[in-house]
């Protein structure tokens, strides 16, 4: 159930946001940077959602992803010879999302990947993600077994991840998973 996934993700997000936020805001001292780090973390979680059931300790895994993000950010700053921010956290206005958070590049890459899928798989993928159809609905519409549809979706997601990895976007997560 595609929308079921989104709902579950929303629950997961709301469960972990209060657990990640206090540290990250103190660590970065910037609401915008905290948003970036947390968004990156959850994108990784989202794009690996099929694996969550296999991971023995999903909570621990999520913290690991988040700490990776924090480390990369801090290291980048250090390498650019910038010290950690000091002083009180910025109280910038964050009502509007920054353009940097719009994820245009990532979306464009995923777009490319999806269009490289074989016709049938692409069709199933689009029915699931764009039209929000459930697996039984897709199976019925295409005259396939639900298992076939499910497998096609898992394979497509894996393909997208690999495609992103090739473009080094999400390399980190694959390293984590292995």
């Amino acid at each position, binding site marked *: *159930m595609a929308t079921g*996934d989104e*709902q*579950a*993700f*929303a*629950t*997961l*997000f*709301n*469960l972990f*946001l*209060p*657990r990640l*936020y*206090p*540290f*990250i805001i*103190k*660590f970065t*001292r910037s609401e915008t940077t905290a*948003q970036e780090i*947390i*968004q990156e973390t*959850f*994108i990784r979680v*989202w794009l690996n*959602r099929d694996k*969550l*059931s296999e991971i023995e*300790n*999903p*909570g621990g895994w*999520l913290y690991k992803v*988040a*700490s990776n993000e*924090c*480390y990369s950010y*801090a290291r980048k700053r*250090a*390498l650019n010879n910038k*010290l*950690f921010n*000091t*002083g009180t956290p910025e109280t910038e206005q964050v*009502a509007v*999302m920054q353009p940097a*958070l719009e994820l245009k590049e*990532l979306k464009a890459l995923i*777009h490319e990947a*999806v269009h490289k899928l074989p016709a049938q798989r692409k069709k199933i993928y*689009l029915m699931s*993600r*764009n039209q929000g159809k*459930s*697996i*039984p609905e897709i199976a019925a519409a295409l005259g396939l077994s639900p298992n076939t549809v499910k497998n096609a*979706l898992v394979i497509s*997601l894996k393909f*997208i991840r690999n495609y992103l990895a090739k473009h080094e976007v999400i390399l980190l997560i694959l390293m984590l998973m292995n």
Partner: protein
Amino acid sequence: MEHQRLTYLLERHLADNATQQEQQELSVLLKANANGEVFKTVIAEMMQKETPAFPVNLEPWQKMIGNVVNTDKVGYEKDRPIGKVIRLYRWSANVAVLLLVGLGIYFLMNRLLPATKKGNDVIHYQVVSTARSNQKKVVLPDGSQVWLNAASTIRYPDSFGSQERSVELYGEAWFDVQHDEKVPFIIHTGNITTRVIGTAFDIKAYPGQQNRIISVQRGKVNVMAGDKILATLEKGRQVRIIGTVCEVRDIDTVSVAAWKLGNLYYKDESFGDIIADLQRVFKDSIQIKNNSLKAIVTTAAFNKDIGLHKALEILCNITDGRLSKKDGIYIIE
């Protein structure tokens, strides 16, 4: 590199009292290639030690959920309208395990959050969820009773500490709290907390819903945002929190948590919220075509037993909406 030294330096940084020298040291350690793993481990440890807290301004974070789930949709030039994304939230509490077939973020919340460390003690949590059209009674470790309404989740520790009795709620529940003056009972719903000593009351705080409503049947309740008291309620009073606006009014105590008996009781609630509620009580999908309808303030009462169709007919009568059914989905326009 020493794990202990790094923990110390990062703690100094978090507390914002690192000396310039310590900051330099941290910078040098960050630059060295070999330190990555230790850094990540220490950061993850420290992260888990922090006391959970929501950001003050939740709005951009709620938008983020839409951004993230939209990343792997293709052919969407623009992100889906936020309204739709947030609407998903209303079901979010149906929790995964029950719903997820398919690609499934199949997770058990118990597995996700097995334990938190507080000082040296490890706290284990229980998570109880209800599906749509479902209710559950939960008895907490202190003997307090919770009646969980549809599509809701509560998380509580195996045993409460001596300082406070804290639980987290997503959705709606009626509480009958054991009296204990020394150990306040605290319910966290997003950035709003409700503190009580011993009382019976209902909290309705579905993620994504416009209003958060707290109604008191017996005793006294403090509703707070951070350290700020938003409202102090006594028996027969109700507060609605819409954004930062609080509205307190009198209610009939009989109507508090009427849902436990299958009575659906809506007083001056928006049509959109009522429909969202009906979708939780019944399993069917209902779509409201025009936004102007959603905002109409409505009062209605009926029993669940009359069935969804009848209930929608009554509501459409009141709001001048037109009801139809297509592909198993109710449509109101």
